[in-house]
């Protein structure tokens, strides 16, 4: 099974990659826009925080399953995900539309 504890190094690299996406790519933050991006098949990767309500999390995962888009469960709560995005608000789920210069889409979906 996947290692229970995410190592510090991979966690930081996810944060770095996310920061690069924020700078150079296109993304949307928030549940409504995540579903919109999935419906129009624009989203390429979905990131969900660990304290996202389970019903909402399964709904996003179901949409992503229909879309064949990867979902990454971020190792941190919505406060941490907001900080990782460089925002001063909480972010429970986000969708990456264009990764820009980042390789987050190639490196992440191996992990689910």
């Amino acid at each position, binding site marked *: 099974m996947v290692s229970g504890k995410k190592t510090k190094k991979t966690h930081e690299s996810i944060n770095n990659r996310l920061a690069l996406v924020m700078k150079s790519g296109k993304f949307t933050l928030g549940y409504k826009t995540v579903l919109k991006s999935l419906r*129009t*098949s624009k989203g390429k990767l979905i990131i969900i925080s660990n304290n996202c309500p389970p019903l909402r999390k399964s709904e996003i995962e179901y949409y992503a399953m*229909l879309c*064949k*888009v990867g979902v990454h469960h971020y190792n941190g709560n919505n406060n941490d995900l907001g900080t990782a995005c460089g925002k001063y608000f909480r972010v429970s789920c986000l969708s990456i539309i264009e990764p820009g210069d980042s390789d987050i889409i190639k490196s992440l979906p191996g992990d689910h």
Partner: protein
Amino acid sequence: MVKFLKPNKAVIVLQGRYAGRKGVIVKSFDEGTRDRPYGHCLVAGIKKYPSKVIRKDSRKKTDKKSRVKCFVKLVNYQHLMPTRYTLDVDLKDVVTADALQTKDKKVAACKATKERFQERFKTGKNRWFFTKLRF
């Protein structure tokens, strides 16, 4: 990255009078139209599900129990929950956007979809579609 809101997709209506009912997408308007500048689709759904038919029912009873009442509606994508199921019943010729213009055209469309749904129910296929969603 695969589009899934396509014709023949089974969906569940989430809002409105038909909330909780299952339907099938007949035609999707991803870009919207002038009247509806958002993604929406034509859904043909079940207003009243058929009851459970058992083996010892008489012919008259099975006919009565297999009756399906249908609705035809333009629904915003936001008010639908897509599912992994599909229902390939050919409704394209019967359910069209202009069937919703006048009341009698709508009734005619509903009657035609009712026929098609009932015959599909009687074959015993797509059983998930014809069972009521319990919530």
